[in-house]
């Protein structure tokens, strides 16, 4: 009797697990009411792209509202210059960060910059290091984030 009851329970749990795996739901504690989840990629050396990616983040917040959208900007390659401590967009990054936008800095790129500079570059205090920018983007996409590369 005990074995007979166990089978349906196991099947139910398996179905629950599979369904959870098939449709990942982004879960960000800072943005519990977010209905949209976006990851913005900045990997371009063109400085105009820095302004553009910040503009896109700002416009998304304006459109959906600060609480309804969850944005993470992932910087890697030459795009990491956006998150260097002396970047001239510092005040804009401050502003976006205060509205809940997260900034991720690629550790691989930091290592490469360190090699070229002879010292580790100082990062914007609002940035968080991730092991690899591309991996971070893939993980976020797996979680249901929409990838936008302005």
């Amino acid at each position, binding site marked *: 009797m005990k074995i007979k009851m166990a089978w349906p329970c196991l099947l139910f749990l398996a179905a629950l697990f599979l369904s959870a795996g098939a449709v990942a739901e982004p879960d960000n504690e800072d943005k519990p009411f977010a209905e949209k989840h976006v990851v913005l990629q900045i990997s371009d050396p063109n400085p105009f792209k820095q302004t553009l990616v910040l503009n896109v983040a700002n416009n998304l917040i304006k459109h959906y509202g600060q609480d309804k959208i969850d944005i993470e900007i992932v910087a890697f390659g030459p795009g990491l*210059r956006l998150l260097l401590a002396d*970047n001239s967009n510092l005040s804009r990054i401050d502003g976006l960060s205060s509205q809940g936008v997260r900034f991720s800095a690629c550790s691989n790129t930091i290592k490469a910059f360190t090699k070229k*500079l002879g010292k580790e*570059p100082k990062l914007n205090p609002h940035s968080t290091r991730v092991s690899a920018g591309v991996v971070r983007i893939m993980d976020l996409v797996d979680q249901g984030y929409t990838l936008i590369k302005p």
Partner: protein
Amino acid sequence: MKKFIGYAAVLTASMMTGSAHAANWLMLQGTESSSSAPRAKVWGFIQPEFQSTSGTELAAGPWKGQDAAFNMIGPDLDSSDTFQIRRARIGVRGTGFGLDSGVNYFLLVEAGNNGITKLGGGGAVKATDASVTFNYIPHARFRVGLFKTPGSEEGLMAIHVFNYVNFTSMARQQLLERFLAEDGSRTGTDKEVTNAPVSAIGAFRDIGVQVFDTFKNGNWEHSYAAMVGNGNGIDWSDNDSNKDYYLYWASELVFGGKKARRQGWKMFAWYNDGTRTLEYVNGVAGKQEFDRKRWGFGTTYLKGKWRAAAEFTWADGMIFNGSDGGAVAGSLNNAGTSRASLNMLPEDKADGWYVDLGYKVMPQLELDVRYDILHRGTETDKGQRDFETWTLGAQWFFNKKARLIANYEIRSAEAPGWSSSAPPNKILDGMDDRFSVQILAIF
């Protein structure tokens, strides 16, 4: 003394509240945006223009009936109405190595028709800027090379946002330096009597080292610059062992906006001290050195539709004194006994000021009016000449990068130490008004 030290401490503390990437000429021309500047940004501008006067000839003096230099269009002085490419500049600027915002560079060359390419032998293309800035020391950036000297707003501001076609008389005659080897006292018909400039016009530039920075305190920005340079304009090296020294201070209440069209109210003061060498003075051959000092203060205002500026400038030593009889330098007098020379008053003085007002009647159209006056050679009654100009202008902005400027200059001049019927005043009475139209296209 304690009070003074207290004020100094407060001032220093307020300056140290934060370094800003401010939009002012020192920063715009000498630095790049940290970690967001391109390695190499190619840019430039072209200024085709048409200028015209009535071409009134000299009414008196040994060159009577010949072209009056002040009614001809420079730099060639061949015609009283001409199309020309006033400026055609192309340059590249950036950080070179994008990961390090500590170093940036600025290179610009001129291929237009002006005193840079035409005077002193000139050349079809000439470098006007070639500088490297080091931003490693807090509050003390170093700029090294050839660049605009910290000084008068008219000279320091970027020419592609200059609101008129021509400079004021003070700036054109006494700040925009002509490098002459003699004072013009040599007589005769030989070619060297002309006393033509030995090098390109100064172009408000020098080669040297400048330390500068800008500090932000609330809505205020304070900028300083100190420079030592050759005092030989855009020539690649010095022509003597004397150096020029420059000091500059500006404080600006920033209203908003950014870059060259930033809105704010700025006050500034500047000082330039140098020495020049002449090889023939008062009819005597032999090298002699003379002080050349320039200083001034002024203000600019830009808010909404209104724009205003005023500057007061003084010059002591090496006063450019035009040409003999108002004739085009190099031309023979009617008797064929003397050639008109360019002249310098090595130990005289001059002063001048201007007030400038602009109003945007619509987003595309700005109307401008400027009054300027120059008192030249003020140490002697007979030698003094006064130049007064009202400039009426209109600027039509096609877009942010292209505009048309139309100016009408109501010009007059007099020799106050002479009677109205005396030859100097008869000559100056013939000064024509000048009409000019200029297109500016930035790329």
